[in-house]
């Protein structure tokens, strides 16, 4: 089972890489591949956060009883992580409107902060929940 979860994490991590295709220039991104790659990264990190909070919610009672620190961390993802994701989209919008180096730097910094937070989610997902005594 641990391997299955590990495969999922590897799966998520693999697809966190930017896409390899070229953009249809008539699409919503108007050929702006960097913005598309940014949105892919945001979407993938959000998907990982979704998987983590949904898993924790589905096993809440067991997790509270056996791994309270995981529950506490899930609550942190639901509050701090959600704020970070929302802020990330604001910074993404700012960069889309003004693709300056300063805006890109702020966006990259916010992405790094969110990834650092979700690194712990990856760790918790691959740590089995102990069986009830």
């Amino acid at each position, binding site marked *: *089972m641990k391997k299955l979860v590990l495969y999922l994490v590897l799966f998520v991590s693999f697809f966190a890489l930017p*896409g390899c295709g070229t953009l*249809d220039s008539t699409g919503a991104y108007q050929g702006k591949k960097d913005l598309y790659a940014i949105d892919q990264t*945001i*979407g993938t990190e*959000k*998907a990982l956060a*979704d998987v983590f909070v949904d898993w924790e919610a589905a096993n809440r009672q067991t997790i509270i009883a056996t791994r309270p620190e995981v529950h506490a961390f899930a609550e942190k993802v639901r*509050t701090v992580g959600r704020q970070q994701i929302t802020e990330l989209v604001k910074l993404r919008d700012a960069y889309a409107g003004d693709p300056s180096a300063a805006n890109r730097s702020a966006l990259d910094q916010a992405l790094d902060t969110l990834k650092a937070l979700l690194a712990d989610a990856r760790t918790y997902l691959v740590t089995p929940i102990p069986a009830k005594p």
Partner: protein
Amino acid sequence: MNTAAILSLFDLLISGAEKLAPVVQELANKGEITVEQQNALLARIGAIRDGTAFGPGWKTDSERA
């Protein structure tokens, strides 16, 4: 690991695969990223912006009380 947790992990695997399906489809097509694929990604970002992307799993203890 108890049975409920194991079943939940299978749900998690399926859920994760469903959420990442658009990305998988896009990467499978290493040529042009279509208008539809671009619209789908932009819609996901829009859902985060307006808050609709945060489902029941995002409710905190106090919100659930």
